[in-house]
C-alpha cells in the first residue's frame, strides 16, 4: 500500500522547520553563517580607570582588521567588528558577550577583558560554543587549569607564570651579582598583585636561595597616597624592592618614592614599568629601574616590530600598550587560520588554531605559536631590562629563554595539580 501525501505541511517538514527555528534561537550565528560580512564581537573596557588599555586594544584590533579587509577579508568575507564597553565589570562583560552573539549575530568573540571579566566571557563561550580568543587576561589559570579548558576558546596573551619565571631568574642573577639579599615587596592588594608577587619571589628564592623578603606592603588598588608605604620600606632598609604596581598607581608611587630618594637607596624591580603608558607619563623617570617588557617597539629589536609600533603611533598618535600587541596578534592568528581552513566556520578555525605557528612582529624568534594542549600563546618576546628617562626608555632587554620557561612551567603545572 502506498501512502499518498496530503496537501499542506507534513509532520516531517513541520519538525524540520521547528528544528531550524530552534537552531536559530539557540545558535543564531550558525543561521547567519553565510552572511557576506563576518561580525566579530568584542567586549572590552572603554570607560573607567583602565579605559586607556581597552581603547588601545580596540585600536590594535582595528589596525589589523583594516589590513585583513584590504587583503580580501577572512576566506572572502569582510570583517565587521562590533566593539562594546563592559565598564570593567565581569557581569557586564558576560552580558555584552552574550548579546553580541545572540542579538548582534557575531560569529566569533575577541575577549578584550581584564582577568575578572575574561573568566565571565569564558563561561559565555562555553555555554554558546562560539569561537572565542582571550586577548588581555594574564591569569595563568585561565588556560593552565584543565577545568577551564573548552575546545572553542584560546588565549592570545602573555601569561603571569611566564613573567614570573623570567622575572625571578633575571632578578636572581642581579641579586647574585650585586649581593642583594634583603628584599622588600610592594604590590596592589588583590588577586593579581598577590599571585604575581608570590610567584616572582618563589622563583627569585629558587634561583638565589640567600634572598630574604624582610618587608611586604600591600597598598589598595588605586590608592592615591603611598607615603606610609614608602617610609615603611625605607625603615626596613632593604637592598632591593619588587613591585607589580601598574598604570597610574605605579607612576604615583614613583613620584612619591622619588622625593624620598628611594631609587638611589635600593635596586627597584617593577615588572610593569616598561610600558609606554607609564614610561611616557612619569616626568622624572629614575634611571636604572629593572622592568619586564610589556610592549616596547625596541624589543624584539626587529624592523617588523619597530614598523608596527610606528604605524600604530602614526594612526592613533600614541604608542601601543601591552594589550595592543596581544590584540593585534589575535587578529593575525584568526586571519591565518581562516586562510588555512579556507573557511570562517568556528569549529574548523578552532581545529586549525591548535598548534598553529605564525609569523609575528612580537615573536621571540619572529614567530608565535598557539600551543595545542592548553590553547595558549607561547614564543612571544619576553625579557627584562633597565630604564633610562628618555626614548628608547629600555635600551637593552635580556630575552627570556623559552626552553627554560617550558621546563619550569611544566613543573609549576604539576605542583598545582594541573597535569
Amino acid at each position, binding site marked *: 500500500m502506498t501512502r499518498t501525501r496530503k496537501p499542506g505541511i507534513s509532520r516531517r517538514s513541520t519538525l524540520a522547520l521547528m528544528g531550524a527555528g530552534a537552531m536559530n534561537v539557540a545558535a543564531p550565528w550558525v543561521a547567519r553563517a553565510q552572511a557576506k560580512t563576518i561580525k566579530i564581537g568584542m567586549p572590552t573596557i572603554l*570607560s*573607567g*580607570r583602565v*579605559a*586607556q588599555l581597552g*581603547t588601545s586594544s580596540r585600536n590594535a584590533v582595528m589596525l589589523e582588521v583594516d589590513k585583513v579587509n584590504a587583503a580580501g577579508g577572512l576566506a572572502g568575507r569582510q570583517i565587521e567588528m562590533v566593539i562594546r564597553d563592559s565598564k570593567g565589570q565581569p557581569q557586564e562583560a558576560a552580558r555584552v558577550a552574550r548579546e553580541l552573539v545572540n542579538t548582534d549575530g557575531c560569529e566569533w568573540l575577541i575577549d578584550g577583558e581584564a582577568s575578572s571579566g575574561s573568566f565571565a566571557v569564558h563561561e559565555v563561550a562555553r555555554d554558546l560554543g562560539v569561537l572565542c580568543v582571550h586577548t588581555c587576561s594574564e591569569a595563568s589559570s585561565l588556560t593552565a587549569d584543565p577545568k577551564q579548558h573548552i575546545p572553542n576558546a584560546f588565549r592570545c596573551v602573555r601569561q603571569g607564570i611566564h613573567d614570573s619565571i*623570567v622575572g625571578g*631568574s*633575571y632578578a*636572581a*642573577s642581579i641579586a*647574585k651579582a650585586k649581593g642583594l639579599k634583603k628584599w622588600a615587596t610592594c604590590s596592589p592588594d588583590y588577586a593579581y598583585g*598577590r599571585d604575581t*608577587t*608570590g*610567584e616572582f*619571589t*618563589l622563583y627569585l628564592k*629558587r*634561583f*638565589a*636561595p640567600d634572598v630574604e623578603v624582610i618587608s*611586604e*606592603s*600591600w597598598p589598595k588598588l*588605586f*590608592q*592615591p*597616597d603611598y*607615603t*606610609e*608605604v*614608602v*617610609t*615603611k620600606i*625605607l*625603615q626596613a632598609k632593604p637592598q632591593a624592592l619588587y613591585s607589580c604596581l601598574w*598604570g*597610574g598607581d605605579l*607612576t*604615583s608611587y614613583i*613620584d*612619591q618614592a*622619588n*622625593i*624620598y*630618594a628611594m631609587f638611589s637607596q635600593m635596586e627597584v624591580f617593577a615588572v610593569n614599568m616598561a610600558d609606554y*603608558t607609564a614610561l611616557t*607619563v612619569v*616626568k*622624572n623617570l629614575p634611571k636604572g629601574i629593572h622592568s619586564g617588557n610589556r610592549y616596547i617597539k625596541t624589543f624584539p629589536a626587529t624592523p617588523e616590530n619597530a614598523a608596527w609600533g610606528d604605524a600604530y603611533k602614526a594612526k592613533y598618535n600614541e604608542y601601543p600598550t601591552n594589550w595592543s600587541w596581544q590584540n593585534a596578534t589575535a587578529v593575525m592568528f584568526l586571519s591565518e587560520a581562516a586562510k588555512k581552513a579556507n573557511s570562517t566556520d568556528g569549529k574548523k578555525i578552532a581545529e586549525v588554531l591548535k598548534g598553529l605557528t605564525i609569523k609575528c612582529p612580537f615573536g621571540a624568534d619572529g614567530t608565535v605559536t598557539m600551543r595545542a594542549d592548553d590553547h595558549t600563546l607561547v614564543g612571544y618576546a619576553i*625579557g627584562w631590562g633597565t630604564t633610562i628617562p628618555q626614548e628608547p626608555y629600555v635600551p637593552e632587554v*635580556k*630575552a*627570556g*629563554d623559552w*626552553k*627554560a620557561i617550558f621546563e619550569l612551567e611544566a*613543573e609549576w603545572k604539576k*605542583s598545582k595539580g594541573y597535569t
Partner: protein
Amino acid sequence: MTVSAVFVSFSAPYQAHDNESASVDLDALAGCLSSSACLVTQTTSGLIIGMLLFLVAVGLTLIFGVLKVVNFSHGAFYMFGAYFAMTAYHLTESFALAMLAGAAGTAILGLIFERVFMSRVYGADVLMQLLVCYAFVLIFDDVVRIIWGPEFKSMGMPSAFQVMPLFIAGGVVPPYYLLLIGVALVVAIVLGIGLSRSRIGKVVRAAAHNPGMVSALGINTGLIYGGVFALGGMLAGLAGALAAPVRSLTPGMGFSVLIESFIVTVIGGMGSILGALIGALLLGLIRSFGSLGFPLFTEGLMYLFMVIVLVSKPTGLFGKEAA
C-alpha cells in the same frame, strides 16, 4: 644574552610560596617608637597624609557648617584643582601659577556650581541634594575625561623640589612635603582666626546660625553661601594642586579622597574646623604608624577609630550637640 645564562642554581628545593604576611607586627611598631629616625619619618609621613586630607575635609565641613549641605561632589573639586594645576604648570612651568590656577579655578567653579545648581536644592530633601551632588560627580568625571582624556596623567615635580630629602634626627623628610605641611597650617590658622575674629567670619557664622535674621538685616545671604561654597571648593582645589606633583591624575581621582574626608569630618565633628584638623592629623598618624604595626589592617584601623569616636561621642570630637 639569553636567560639560560641566568638560570644558575637549581639546587634549592622547590618551595611552596608563603603568601601570608603577618597581620600584626607589634615588634616593628615598638622598634619604630624607640627609634628617633623612624619616629621622625613616620610622624612627618602622618602629617603629610593628614594635612592634604585636612584641606579637602575642611572645605567639606565648612560647607556643611554654613549651608547644611553634605557636598558629595566635593572630591570633584580636588580633581579639578589637580588638573588645573597640571595644565597651568605645563603651559607656564611656574609652580606658583599652577597652585594659583588650581585654587582660583576651583573657587570660580564652586561659585558657579553653587549659584546655578546647589542653591536650588537648599530647602529640598537630603536625598534630593545627594542625587544632585552624585549626578555632578559623574558629570564632572566625564568633563575631565572629555577635556584631558581617560588616561592617567602626571604633572611632574618642579625642579626646585627635585632635591635630596632632609635628614632630621636620622629621619627622612622631603622638602616638598614641608611646603605642603606649611601651606596647610597657614590655611588652618587663617581660617580659624578669620572665622572667629573677622567681621566677615562673624557674618558667616551668623548666617549659619540664623540665615533668616541675617537676611533681614540686609545682608545678602546668597552671596555668603556662594562665597563659602567657593572657599570650600578652593581649599579642595588647592589640595588637588598640591597633590598633583606626587599623585597620578585620573578621572574619578576625587572619590577615594572624598571617602577619607568624610571619615575625618565625622571623627572631628561635622562643621568644626578644629575638628577637621585634629581628625585629619589623627587619621594620618593612624595610617602612618598603623602600616608598621598592623600592615593588613591599616584601613580597618581608621574605621575602627571612627566607630569608637562615634560610640563615645556621636557628634564627633569637636562637633556641637544639635539644638
